[in-house]
């Protein structure tokens, strides 16, 4: 049974767009049921399994050669686009969620792990909806759903610091939700209840430019807040620092990838209206601000989580460089999706590795210095974290390089050389803080000396799982090296708008 035959057999099933979301949600519910019977570990495992299946299904949907007859992008209920590039990005959303649950979320308090896993499962499903949303209402609901999940996951740390970060995140988030509701009210209200992008197109064109602009900007701001772009970034560092590393992986990777998808689609829709053309300038300014602020602020950090938070702000800046091109073409959206995928994989692997360290090394206080000499104790996971950090810096032979390359290539074709140089120099400076983590892991001698720590590490291992970070690193490395061997076209395979 060759690969093609398997694909042929699976084709009818894979073409159902919402299948992965259904699997993820049912897994979440099953996880909750298991939790009720105090079977917490199995609950998390069920959710993880469900997410794995969802990831595989959407991967299949992304790469199966769609016969010419069927429409390019299959839409479900006409409101959520699935298939093609959207399935590709959905696959990444599910994969990163799977990695996050795969760690077993041991850094959370006992008793709350299964519910957190359930939230992650439901969140991944909502993520797929968000990234494919072609209806303002669906976009809004998915956005708020993910917001609620995010507040809960940050608070799941179970200590004063995480409560404080969650509360602050909530206050900011509610202001953003207020703006979103206002946006929905204006856009949908004025277009006589038509919330789908298609009908919206016509009514927006006929609407008074000022109103359309206001509605559009409200929604863009809400999404920008979800992304954590510069003016709306304040929640990112606190959330990533205090949230338990496993859940932070979900927040940083899958939620962000989904938000990037949703944001880009909204931009594509809005950019068709002449009134919105200047929006591109705003996106570029946010991009540059995010890159500069994110990179600079991350330099001073001592906590790894907080540093990754600031670096996330910078990474969003790079995405917006790709999104801020004026004639948005399928190539530029594909480049943005690709970057979202490579960044999500990198971030997920990093946080999952931090989860391993947090539970494997109880004495670790989350600081960069605390990781000194850890490479000799946990060579595999430190290797995975190193690959993740190198990918986020954009060093070749990792997926991150291709992500950045195509985004900057697109922006350069658009004549945005100043933005490209800011982005590139920003990613060069980023090694100043990513590199410090690598340096402390490999080069610094740990205070307790390597020998003593080596044997002590072995007995804690059974509970803590290293395989999620290894899978993540393997994907990042494979995606980095494969294009060199099988050609650049492979890079577009997952995100081609065939």
């Amino acid at each position, binding site marked *: 049974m060759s690969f093609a035959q398997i694909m042929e057999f699976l084709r009818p099933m894979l073409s159902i767009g919402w299948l992965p979301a259904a699997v993820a949600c049912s897994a979440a519910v099953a996880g909750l049921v298991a939790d009720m019977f105090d079977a917490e570990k199995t609950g998390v495992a069920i959710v993880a399994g469900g997410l794995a299946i969802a990831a595989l299904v959407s991967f299949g949907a992304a790469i199966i050669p769609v016969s010419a007859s069927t429409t390019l992008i299959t839409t479900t209920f006409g409101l959520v686009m699935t298939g093609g590039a959207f399935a590709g990005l959905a696959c990444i959303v599910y994969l990163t969620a799977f990695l996050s649950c795969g760690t077993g979320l041991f850094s959370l308090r006992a008793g709350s792990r299964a519910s957190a896993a359930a939230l992650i499962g439901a969140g991944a499903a909502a993520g797929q909806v968000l990234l494919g949303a072609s209806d303002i209402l669906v976009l809004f609901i998915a956005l708020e759903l993910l917001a609620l999940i995010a507040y809960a996951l940050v608070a799941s740390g179970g200590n004063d610091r995480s409560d404080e970060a969650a509360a602050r995140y909530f206050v900011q988030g*509610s202001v953003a939700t*207020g703006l979103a509701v*206002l946006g929905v009210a*204006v856009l949908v209200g004025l277009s*006589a*209840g038509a919330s789908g992008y298609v009908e919206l197109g016509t009514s927006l064109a006929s609407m008074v430019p000022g109103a359309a602009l206001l509605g559009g900007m409200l929604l863009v701001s809400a999404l920008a807040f979800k992304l954590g772009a510069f003016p709306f970034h304040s929640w990112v560092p606190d959330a990533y620092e205090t949230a338990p590393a496993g859940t932070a992986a979900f927040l940083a990777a899958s939620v962000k990838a989904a938000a990037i998808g949703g944001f880009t689609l909204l931009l594509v829709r809005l950019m068709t209206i002449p009134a919105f053309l200047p929006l591109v300038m705003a996106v570029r300014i946010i991009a540059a601000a995010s890159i500069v602020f994110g990179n600079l602020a991350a330099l001073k950090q001592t906590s790894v989580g907080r540093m990754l938070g600031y670096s996330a702000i910078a990474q969003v800046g790079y995405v917006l460089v790709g999104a801020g091109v004026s004639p948005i073409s399928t190539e530029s959206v594909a480049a943005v999706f690709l970057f979202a995928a490579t960044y999500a994989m990198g971030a997920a692997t990093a946080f999952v590795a931090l989860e391993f360290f947090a539970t494997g090394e109880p004495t670790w206080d989350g600081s960069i210095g605390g990781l000194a000499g850890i490479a000799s104790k946990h060579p595999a996971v430190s290797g995975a974290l190193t690959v993740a950090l190198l990918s986020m810096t954009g060093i070749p032979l990792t997926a991150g390089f291709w992500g950045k390359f195509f985004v900057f290539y697109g922006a350069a074709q658009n004549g945005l050389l100043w933005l490209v140089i800011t982005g590139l120099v920003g990613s060069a400076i980023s090694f100043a803080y990513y590199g410090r983590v690598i340096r402390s892991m490999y080069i610094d001698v740990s205070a307790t000396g390597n020998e003593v720590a080596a044997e002590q590490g072995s007995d804690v291992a059974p509970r803590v799982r290293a395989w999620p970070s290894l899978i993540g690193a393997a994907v990042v490395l494979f995606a980095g090296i494969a294009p060199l061997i099988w050609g650049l076209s492979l890079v577009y395979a997952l995100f081609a708008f065939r």
Partner: protein
Amino acid sequence: MTILVLCALIFGVGMYTVLTRREIIAILAGVELMLGSANVLFIALASFSGADPGVAGAIGLVILVVAAAEAAVGLALVVTLSRRSKRSSIDELTEVNG
């Protein structure tokens, strides 16, 4: 036109409450103000632009439910904050920074 000014005004008051109140419960109330006024604005605009009442109602209901869910989670946060670390005003919430 009056409904527009009214809703906009109340939205502003809600935002003002969120930005200036020290206690989180009061901030929650401010959030409710914002979301409620936005919902009313939607219904008004929908009826003005001749939307089918069913659709407007459905979307209105969606906004209402989302706002309610948000309030519930907000309250949960408030309760945990006061229970676990005896803090309810945002001036005490400055431990995580830098």
